């Protein structure tokens, strides 16, 4: 079968694609059946993936990433699904969603604090939006974070959270508090 080659591919990405095919075929696919039995991937697969350079690929090197762009993320995600057609490896959430939030919106201190550990696999990240009973209806989010002195006090519950059992970092959604008990937002 002649494979379709994306016009945005180049030599470097083709090398990455080849190495990923070997990596997923040897380090992921043979373990999938056992991972399905146990209900999660092995925790150390995250560290292997980090060492191989496929976590946070589009994060700049100064924050521990591969310094790539979205093409690298696209190749990494595509080859994962092409390897097995499925997988419990939640790198899409970890790298392509969570790392993006921290990189795009985090302060310099936050980027330095979390991204290197996410890139190495030392920390697994999840994003917690959905709550029991909300689904697509985000206006009904009930989780609260109230200022008490200099700290926020968070109460609520989330569900259907990918990487939920293994997450060391959780990006949590909550409605902005009313001005009566929260500092003024910028807009």
């Amino acid at each position, binding site marked *: 079968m002649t494979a379709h080659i994306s016009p945005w591919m180049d030599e470097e990405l083709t090398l990455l694609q080849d190495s990923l095919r070997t990596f997923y075929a040897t380090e992921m696919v043979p373990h999938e059946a056992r991972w399905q039995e146990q*209900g999660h991937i092995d925790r150390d697969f995250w560290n292997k993936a980090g060492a191989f350079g496929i976590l946070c690929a589009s994060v700049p090197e100064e924050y521990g990433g591969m310094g790539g762009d979205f093409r690298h993320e696209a190749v990494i995600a595509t080859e994962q699904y092409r390897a097995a057609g499925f997988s419990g490896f939640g790198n899409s959430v970890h790298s*392509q969603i969570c790392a993006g939030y921290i990189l795009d919106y985090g302060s310099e201190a936050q980027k330095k604090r979390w991204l290197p550990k996410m890139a190495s696999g030392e920390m697994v990240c999840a994003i917690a939006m959905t709550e029991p009973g909300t689904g697509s209806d985000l206006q009904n989010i009930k989780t609260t974070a109230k200022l008490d002195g200099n700290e926020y006090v968070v109460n609520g519950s989330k569900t259907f959270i990918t990487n939920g059992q293994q997450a060391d970092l959780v990006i949590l959604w909550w409605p902005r508090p009313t001005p009566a008990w929260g500092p003024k937002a910028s807009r």
Partner: protein
Amino acid sequence: MVAKTDPSMGAKGISLMVVETADAPGFARGRNLEKLGLKSQDTSELFFDNVRLPPENLLGGTEGQGFYQLMKSLPQERLVVALGGAAAMDKALEETVAYTAERKAFGKPLLEMQNTRFKLAEVKTVAHIARVFLDDCVAKHLRGELDATTASMAKWWVTQMQCDTMDECLQLFGGYGYMSEYPISTMYADARVQKIYGGSNEIMKELIARSLTP
């Protein structure tokens, strides 16, 4: 996922907070949820009971920015879901061609029978169209031009085609397609959630429909 940009929602806003679970008294994980598919993915409930967080954990340091942050990031999230769907179709085609070339019925391989050939010709066409469409989406995204409408098209259409493809491919495996030892059964089950998460396909269509101005 984001149903509507109700003005009251925009005013109220959403904030993003980062919780380090090892250092968050009051944080608890629920059970690992049992699902139809994606069984090697740990998917869970999370509970927050008076979890205290310093302001340093507020993403970006300003409250109320979450909704804006989300709207900016959603096209990429939807594109990633679609990329997985297109790749899964490639894999399903590969598996099904290999199986039907091997499996004989009524004296010849299934792959030599017209129904198999026409079904897989359709699958190959759809998988190719998905890839070409997504190449355009990736190119747009690299230029910072992937808009919500196009990303929504990619997400709903590719994941719908993924589910349809898994169903057609599984059928060609006959009874074996229903057995867990054949990857097509897992791929069939795993595909289903793609139409639900990352913004349900109905929400995608609603977002696209908003661009239908006379």
